């Protein structure tokens, strides 16, 4: 089997139909009430899949860590009975952009760090992933994540008559038995190269510093004036976190069924921007002031987790800037920090 094959658009439809026959498939589906916008959702037929889409509101991490995830059910027997909610069905996640593949890989690292939690990897082990290349929107700045293939089994690049399919893993090769593919010709490879080149050209936004330099800048400077300026505009609504493919903070709460003898423990996506995130006993809050939370977001993504995992926890997907109804743009703010740091160096 060659590592690159071609699947025509019609063949993709048949392929997706067969995937759905094999098991559940999640992928970008056009929003029913808002045409043109996609969301990751369970796909029931191949025509629901919207393979060429601009960034979704919520990233595909929701396939593995849903925003509301029951951890187990309980019954108030003696002793209380705990029933794990073990989901065992394998599924396929289709249509993941390169930035989101990078996000999934980062979450793998975060959850695997000792002491490792088991919920995320258990969900990951159930899934095959098909990546797809995309054209950036005006909020994208996917720097070094934009050409990545790690984390998927097959990778699709749009070409004139369908997709060039790169086989990344054995699981990916195995999936191809469900499809009709042809050998990639030179024209097809050229098409794909052109697509990648055009994508590269269209990405104009970017953080004007290396990740390492940016971490140093954040560590060495204070930038309190800037954080305060940003905080005046920040709602602390948490949308930058709840749309982020690399954010992994959560809350855990119990809920009773109305019978009041049983219920479940649920973990939900949380956000360090919310005012009560850092509340501790006695009413102390070590990031009570809005600007401290704004600073924490930049420090966590570009300094703390950079030092911990050797890359910033940002994929350049632009979701946080797009979701920010205060229009606080991650690229603009980062570049403002860099500019102020360099300005103060010179003066």
């Amino acid at each position: 089997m060659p590592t690159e094959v071609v699947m025509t658009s019609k063949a993709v439809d048949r392929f997706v139909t067969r995937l759905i026959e094999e098991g559940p498939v999640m992928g970008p589906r056009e929003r029913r009430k808002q045409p043109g916008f996609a969301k990751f959702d369970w796909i029931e037929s191949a025509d629901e899949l919207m393979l060429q889409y601009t960034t979704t509101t919520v990233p595909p991490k929701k396939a593995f860590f849903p925003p509301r995830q029951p951890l187990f059910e309980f019954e108030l027997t003696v002793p209380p009975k705990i029933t794990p909610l073990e989901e065992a069905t394998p599924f396929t996640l289709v249509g993941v952009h390169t930035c989101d593949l990078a996000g999934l890989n980062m979450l793998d690292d975060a959850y695997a760090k000792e002491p490792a939690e088991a919920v995320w990897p258990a969900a990951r082990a159930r899934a095959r992933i098909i990546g797809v290349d995309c054209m950036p929107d005006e909020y994208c700045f996917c720097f070094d994540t934009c050409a990545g293939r790690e984390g998927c089994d097959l990778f699709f690049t749009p070409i004139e008559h369908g997709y060039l399919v790169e086989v990344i893993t054995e699981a990916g090769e195995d999936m191809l038995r469900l499809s009709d593919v042809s050998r990639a010709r030179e024209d097809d490879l050229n098409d794909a190269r052109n697509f990648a080149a055009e994508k590269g050209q269209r990405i104009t936004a970017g953080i004007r510093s290396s990740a390492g330099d940016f971490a140093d800048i954040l560590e060495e400077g204070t930038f309190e004036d800037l954080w305060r300026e940003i905080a005046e505009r920040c709602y602390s609504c948490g949308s930058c976190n709840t749309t982020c493919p690399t954010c992994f903070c959560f809350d855990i709460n119990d809920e009773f069924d109305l019978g009041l003898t049983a219920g479940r423990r649920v973990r939900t996506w949380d956000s360090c921007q919310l005012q009560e995130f850092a509340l501790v006993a006695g009413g102390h809050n070590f990031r009570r002031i809005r600007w401290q939370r704004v600073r924490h977001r930049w420090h966590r993504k570009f300094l703390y987790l950079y030092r911990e995992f050797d890359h910033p926890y940002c994929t350049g997907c632009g979701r946080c800037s797009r979701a920010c109804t205060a229009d606080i743009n991650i690229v603009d703010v980062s570049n403002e920090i860099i500019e102020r740091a360099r300005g103060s160096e010179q003066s």
Partner: protein
Amino acid sequence: MARESAIPRFGHKPQVAFFDFACCEGCQLSVLQLEERLLEILEHVDVVTWREAMTEQSSEYDIAFCEGSITTEEDVERIKDIRAEAAVLVTLGSCASTSCHNELKNQWSMDEVLDVVYGDDAGQIHTIASRPISAVVEVDYQTFGCPVSLPEFVKVVSAILTGQSYEPPNEPVCVECKRNDYLCVYEKGEVCLGPVTRCGCDAICTGWGDACQGCRGLMDSANIGAMLKALTREEAHSIMRTVIDRHQLTEGEIAAKLRIYNNWPEFTLEEAETDDD
């Protein structure tokens, strides 16, 4: 725990009464719409007074669900009586918890209000500025929404019956909107009060494609200054550029939007425009 059900708090099956003050009584109607879930709740309590659902009445009860705002001197006396009887007093929906849009009348003097509404027949009505129930008596549990948010109502019922307190969430609607993976209203070019409004409604309006009108009231740390800046900035990226250009809201118009559900005690930009806390 050795118990097979939640902690018994009342020593007997608690008796529940529903009361209404100035409101449309839509919150009671919403509770009736819980249907099967209401039947599950009724396994744990006896409803003894509920004008909208039954004819019997009782002057003895443990838990009082009170809907509506306090807008007359008679209301003040009646809610004090209810407070004296009820072990647990719950405000049902925004009229009771924030005074909702009843407080729009507070923009005028009470004499003007009486004159406009009742003219020469105003004599017997002792109207006062509309206020939430918590402005008159101590409240144990609050639920918000116009009508009341049913997920919150269910949570509060469960908390009461298992002896737990319930703190209304101090987070904006955006949190629940994103957890539900709804498309942001601003992406559609519209203005939404979600970023400053207390969540707990499970973002029901944005889920149906509407903008949040703020019916649950401002969250504690709502950044009104941020909203004024966001909707009037000169430099903006494409989504917010579209919203700003399309609506061209003035500060006064933004304040008017916010005032609809937040005029108790009195909504002014000067009071609201804090950058924190």
